[in-house]
């Protein structure tokens, strides 16, 4: 009989292990309940907060007023069932029972020992017990109780429903997390204060408890007075009447003030210590949902200008910097900053690197570090665009080998600009004006859209001159459907054919370029409507 059960149990466990639907379902619920990065978790959290709030409001209103029957029904059945289902789901996804069975079965087969039910049950129970005794699980369980209204004291547990909301609010959880780091100091303070309060309450009881003070009838009254005084609340319902009692009051008040100051400083310092971490978490959360991120690694002279210019042009920028003073400068400049080392894979992995990052700009003042950043980025993602700065020529080849797409050599650029200026001062100014867009003429790129009036046409078919544009070059993809690499045709002949994904590089004034782009979009829409 036992063997039969074992056989069914083991084969059912193997079935679960190999069932994609089961795994998918369990993964879905695990993501929904526990994975902060899962896109639907946010909606689940909002739903749960709504359920909790509605239930708490109903229970509170019900204290003095009579709520509508359907609201009671909602609170009793709907809310309770949601809470129970949530609790059971959390218990379910916490661990895999079938894995324990399989492991025990394989162990028993390997050592040729009989299958031990006891071991399996104790293992599963200990895993589930581990969850059930965690604080969030206890709160969840207690939050189910207020539904049973016959026992009035259970209504106290309404509070636990409010506590349950903590689960769905990251910032509140963070607050407790911060306090937990100071638990030794807080514990010491609490102990000291409890000890002092106890002594003070005994002293006042000794001096005034024997009938001198009508308000102090028991030790509890004395403790109540001591707590109210030490916390500087001072209701005034119990006041000392003897000189000794007043002297004790003075001591208690001074100690209370000291303790509160101490408590405040503990909390403030805890926040101070954790502030950088909180900021980092916030930055990571902000960029987690961002696509096309430009990572500026190093906030030196080049990094600063690049970050500011990119942001002005509407690009998304994240600065990664290891130096605290530069991090502060970047924050003051209004950038999102990660205080981290860009040469470490952990830093880039935290950003979901390959999915969300468009380009990595390694512009620290140290060539070697830029090489490291390039290697790090390229080893994690083959498609990301890497722009790296270097000063030494010998490093340039290494950067290329490491996978940098573009090299920036400031000294070389300076020399080149100097050469162009000396040779062609007028052309240089024209080029500068075009590049810095200081005058309204500029060079821009326009992609030929599929189905637009230029798709399939020849260069000569469109009169660029009449549109006040100069066609400088056409970039054609190296292979069809290739969007990244192109070859360049300068001053293309009239019979050059144009196709979708070709890029036209045109020079003109803002209005002409905007008009040309608009015409391109319009022709695509018109064609779509016509078809």
């Amino acid at each position, binding site marked *: 009989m036992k063997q039969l059960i074992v056989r069914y149990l083991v084969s059912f466990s193997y079935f679960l292990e190999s069932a994609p639907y089961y795994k998918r379902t369990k993964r879905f619920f695990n993501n929904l309940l526990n994975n902060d990065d899962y896109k639907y978790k946010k909606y689940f959290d909002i739903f749960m907060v709504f359920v909790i709030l509605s239930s708490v409001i109903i229970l509170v209103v019900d204290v003095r007023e009579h709520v509508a029957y359907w609201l009671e029904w909602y609170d009793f059945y709907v809310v309770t069932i949601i809470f129970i289902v949530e609790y059971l789901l959390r218990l379910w996804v916490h661990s895999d029972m079938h894995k324990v069975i399989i492991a025990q079965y394989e162990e028993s087969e390997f050592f040729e020992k009989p299958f031990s039910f006891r071991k399996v049950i104790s293992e599963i129970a200990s895993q589930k017990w581990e969850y059930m005794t965690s604080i969030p699980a206890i709160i969840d369980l207690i939050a189910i109780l207020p539904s049973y209204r016959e026992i009035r004291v259970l209504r106290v547990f309404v509070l636990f429903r409010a506590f349950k909301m903590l689960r769905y609010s990251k910032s509140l959880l963070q607050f407790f997390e911060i306090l937990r780091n100071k638990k030794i100091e807080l514990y010491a303070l609490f102990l000291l204060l409890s000890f002092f309060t106890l002594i003070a309450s005994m002293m006042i009881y000794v001096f005034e408890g024997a009938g001198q003070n009508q308000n102090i009838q028991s030790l509890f009254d004395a403790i109540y007075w001591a707590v109210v005084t030490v916390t500087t609340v001072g209701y005034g319902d119990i006041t000392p009447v003897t000189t000794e009692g007043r002297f004790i009051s003075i001591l208690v008040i001074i100690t209370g003030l000291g303790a509160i100051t101490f408590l405040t400083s503990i909390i403030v310092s805890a926040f101070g210590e954790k502030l950088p971490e909180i900021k980092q978490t916030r930055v990571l959360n902000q960029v987690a949902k961002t696509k096309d991120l430009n990572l500026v690694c190093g906030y030196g002279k080049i990094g600063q200008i690049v970050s500011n210019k990119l942001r002005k042009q509407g690009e998304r920028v994240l600065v990664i910097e290891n130096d605290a003073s530069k991090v502060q400068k970047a924050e003051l400049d209004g950038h999102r900053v990660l205080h981290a080392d860009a040469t470490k894979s952990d830093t880039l992995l935290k950003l979901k690197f390959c999915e969300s990052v468009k380009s990595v700009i390694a512009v620290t003042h140290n060539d070697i570090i830029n090489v490291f950043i390039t290697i790090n980025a390229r080893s994690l993602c083959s498609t990301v665009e890497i722009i790296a700065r270097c000063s030494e020529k010998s490093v340039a080849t290494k950067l290329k080998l490491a996978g940098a797409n573009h090299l920036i050599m400031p000294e070389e650029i300076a020399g080149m600009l100097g050469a162009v200026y*000396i040779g062609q001062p007028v052309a240089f100014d*024209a080029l500068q004006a075009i590049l810095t867009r200081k005058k309204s003429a500029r060079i821009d790129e326009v992609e030929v859209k599929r189905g637009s009036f230029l798709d399939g046409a020849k260069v000569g078919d469109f009169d660029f001159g009449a549109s006040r544009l100069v066609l400088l*070059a056409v970039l054609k993809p190296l292979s069809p459907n290739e969007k990244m690499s192109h070859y360049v045709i300068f001053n293309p002949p009239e019979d050059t054919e144009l196709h979708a994904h070709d890029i036209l590089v045109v020079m003109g004034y803002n209005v002409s370029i905007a008009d040309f782009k608009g015409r391109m979009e319009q022709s695509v829409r018109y064609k779509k409507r016509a078809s």
Partner: protein
Amino acid sequence: MFDTKKERREIILFGYGKLGHRVYEMLSPYFSKITVVEQADELIQDAKDHGIVKSFTADFKQDQELIDLGLEGKILFCAMDEMAMNIFLVLSLKSMTKNATIISISTSAENTRKLKFIGADKVIDIYEASANRIVDIITRPAVTRVLDEVIFVDNGISLEEIEIPFHSFLEGKYVHDIDFKAFDLILVGITDREMGDDFIFVSRGIDHKFDAGDILVLLGESHALENFYKKLTGPS
């Protein structure tokens, strides 16, 4: 660049440190008359080791030593590693020359402002230029690619400015009369003497009349540019 220009421009490069050395490397393919001047003996030795015959030591604080170099009419390129020295040098050179072109390297917006204030004709901020390039690579990759091919890649395509000589075939004609496409060239813009010395982009659509002394900025392959130049300077 046309050989005449290559020969005509005389450059004095001040500084042969980390920066000056690289600037020399970039200038030397285009210009044949470059003199290197440095304060440090070991750097001049480096220059001589690299085969630069015209390299001298000079104390930049001594005006006479600078004057002895023969500064007038030349291009004076200040590329010292130390920014304070560049500023001092530009100030000295400005005070002792009348018609020399002074170019200086700068490393910050603040230095650029100071250099312009004391009279440098052109200031190249190496960090800003680098940053602009990075921004262009990200925001306008195709434009950057095309400009790279024109400026950085030695593939025969270049941007050239040509002054219209007297009695050339262009004189008296209008922009629309000339089919630059037939010369395999693109006319980018023109400095029209009649309309002041401002540079006017051709895409503005105003039909300019060509006169002698106007400067055309043309884009095209070297041989096309040279053919056009020959036709322009040849008998009309």
